[in-house]
Structure formats: structure tokens, C-alpha cells
């Protein structure tokens, strides 16, 4: 995980071996105010436990705050859709396109 001025970025693969650490690091790394940004464009694989960790971190935000997900790869999008997690109000998919460069 790296921290950019405006948010966080995950790279590599997330599965049950590291998803607990992902969840813990997300909770710690979120800014105190404002909507946190998370760039997932460099995640080449993410399983259900990884998306669960992201969904839980988003759900733990104070009311009114949302997690903004950037650069959702097809594989993550498929898992989120199939598991019914693509329409939660606690996060938003951003399609600004800049993070894939």
C-alpha cells in the first residue's frame, strides 16, 4: 500500500492470506475528515475476503462519508457484482481515468 497526497493505493493481489492486513491498514490510513480515496487500478487480483475488507472499512466510516474507489479492474468489478456488493451506499466508483496512467 502506498499513500498519495489524495489517498491510498493497493497493488498486487489480495486473498485470504493478506485480507486481514488490508482491512486493518485501511482503517488506520483513512483520513480523519473528508471522503477517503482508494486506487485499486494496480490490483491484479482480489478475492471476496479482500473486497469484504474494503466494504467493511467503507461501512465503518462516519455517516455521510464514503469511500471513493478509483480504477476498478474488471476482475474486482466481477466479484463485486456477483456478490451483491456493487450497489452499497458507503462507497462510490470513480471513473476519472487518471490513475491508470
Amino acid at each position, binding site marked *: 500500500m502506498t499513500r498519495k497526497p489524495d489517498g491510498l493505493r493497493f497493488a498486487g493481489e489480495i486473498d*485470504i*492470506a493478506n485480507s486481514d492486513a488490508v482491512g486493518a491498514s485501511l482503517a488506520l490510513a483513512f483520513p480523519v475528515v473528508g471522503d477517503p480515496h482508494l486506487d485499486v487500478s494496480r490490483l491484479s*487480483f482480489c*478475492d*471476496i475476503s479482500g473486497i469484504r475488507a474494503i466494504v467493511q472499512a467503507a*461501512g465503518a466510516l462516519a455517516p455521510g462519508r464514503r469511500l471513493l474507489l478509483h480504477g476498478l479492474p474488471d*476482475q474486482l468489478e*466481477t466479484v463485486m457484482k*456477483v*456478490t451483491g456488493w456493487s450497489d452499497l451506499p458507503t462507497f462510490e466508483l470513480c471513473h476519472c481515468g487518471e490513475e491508470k496512467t
Partner: protein
Amino acid sequence: MSMATHPAGDKFRHEAMFYSGWAEFVSGTVPFIKQGVAAGEAVLVVESAQKIDVLRSALDRDADGVMFADMAEVGANPARIIPAWQDFVRQHGQSGRDFRGIGEPIWKGRTADELVECQRHESLLNVAFGTGRPWLLLCPYDVENLPAEVIVEARRSHEFVVEGMSASHSELYRGLEASGGRFDSPLPEPPADVRHIVFDADSLLSLRRHAAGFAVSNGLSARRATELVTAINEVASNSILHGGGTGSMRMWRDASGLLCEISDAGVLDKPLADRTRPGSATRDARGLWLANQLCDLVQVRTLPTGTSVRLHLYLDARPHLHVVEDGPSAGGRPTR
């Protein structure tokens, strides 16, 4: 309408309707549909596109009060049919309206593996709905084009059978409890040279690499290979988390496509575990559900020694749609 006056009685009524030829198909289904429409019930018919055409014509204006869905889409993987009925039941259960349905999951073009899963599906319908609201589900069986043993199994999985104009209790019905009993029907063995790959939490990554390589080198598109790897990873994760910390995987190819089987020492004792739509609670199990949404067929077997999950991905993405249903010959097609 009170529960006491429901045509299904006080519980779910699962009927197999045996027909031979178009005329019997129509006379066995159309009055059932019209009765539901006349009573103001919600009616969902899940049939082949060709049968939907025939029913629309026969129902004429009554067709407007009926929902239709193509079984080749809804039930290509038969484990997706119960969730579709559950959506229907949930939707109409909330409105307080009564409802009924017709579903024909078994047709002549089903592969042997699909057929056995369809038969399990028919039994699991009793488990999914047997203790809920009363409703009627009529399952047509084409006795002319299906083997006799398929009809016998239909008598075991349905509490009622309709033959000709009369409905009766099926003497062979296995009952609600046995309908959800352990499913250990043996699966055909892969070729002897297919090797087992043992995995644990530390080797999931290399398991994914191996599976992706096998899938792509055997002709799966990159997208489908990724879907297969995603499904394999979830089933293998279940082995690690719930099946004793380790498992073994075999991958091979047959005439229909790629197969992958994951086995572990765990016990899966929830008969609907692989076809229960996950709720919004983040802890809800989702792995087997995902496998059924991404794979063409998923075969779960629970044995005294453990659990096996066999995933199928067809190389020809939707072989069902290429099976042209020639339909029963007796009586010919009804004219419009």
C-alpha cells in the same frame, strides 16, 4: 386471499406434469396458468423460448398477466433456478399476492452432468420452499423424449404427479427431509494421469497461477480464465478456512470444456449453501454462490470423508443455446 383458500393448500405444492406431444403440453399448462391469472395471482413461467411462444399464442390475452423467462438463460446452470424462484416468491410474498409458477429444467439436450444437477435441483426445491408460504410449482416432463429413469426420479423429487387430467400423490416421493439429504452421487472419474495439486494458505497464489496457465493453454478466453481462477480461489479458500486448512485440486479437459475439482476434509451440511443469494451482511458466505454465477456448472458432493466441488467451464460458452429443441413429434406443433 387467505392461506386456507389457496389452491396449493396450506403449503408449497410441487407437481411433476408428464406430457407427450404439444397438445398434452398445452392442455397440461394452459389451464393451470389461466386459473392463476383468473385468481389474480402472479404467474411466472420459466420455459424454453419455443414453448414460451406456444404458450403466448395459446393464452392469447391472458398472456399479458403472465411473466415469462427463458429457462436456457435462467437455468443454464441449474443452481441458478432456485434463486430466481426465491426472488419471485420474495417479491410477491411482500405484496401479499398469491403466486404460482411453471418450470421445466430438464430437456433432451442436457448433458449427463447437467441432468444429475437438475435432478438435485428438483429435490432442493422442496427444501427451499417446503416450509414457507404456500404456492404451486408445476414442472413439465417430456416423457416422450426423456429416459424412463428420469421420469422415475421426477416421481421421487415431486410430492405430486399430474398425468392426463388427474393429479395424485407420488408414491415414490422421497419426502422433505431426504430431499435435502447428503448428496453423494458419484461423479465420473477424470483420466488417470490427471494429478492432484495439494494447496494450503501459503500456496493459493501459485494455485491461481497454475489454474490460469491451464485455462488459457486449453483455449479459455482471458476473461473466462480469470472468472474460473476467481471461482477456484474461492472454493480453495473455503477448503483452507472450513475444510481442514488444506485441500487438493485437479484440472482436466473433456469434450465440453474445462473441469476443476477441489476436495477437502470438511463437511458441508447446508444443502442450499451453493445457491443461497448472499444478503447484505458482510459475513454472509459468498464463495460457492460466486462459483455458481461464474461457472457453467458446479457439482458439490458431500461424502463421509469430506467435500468435493467440481467446476465446469464450457469452451463453447453457451452450448445450450445451440441445442435446437425439436419438440415432441406427436401431434405436431399447434397452429397459431
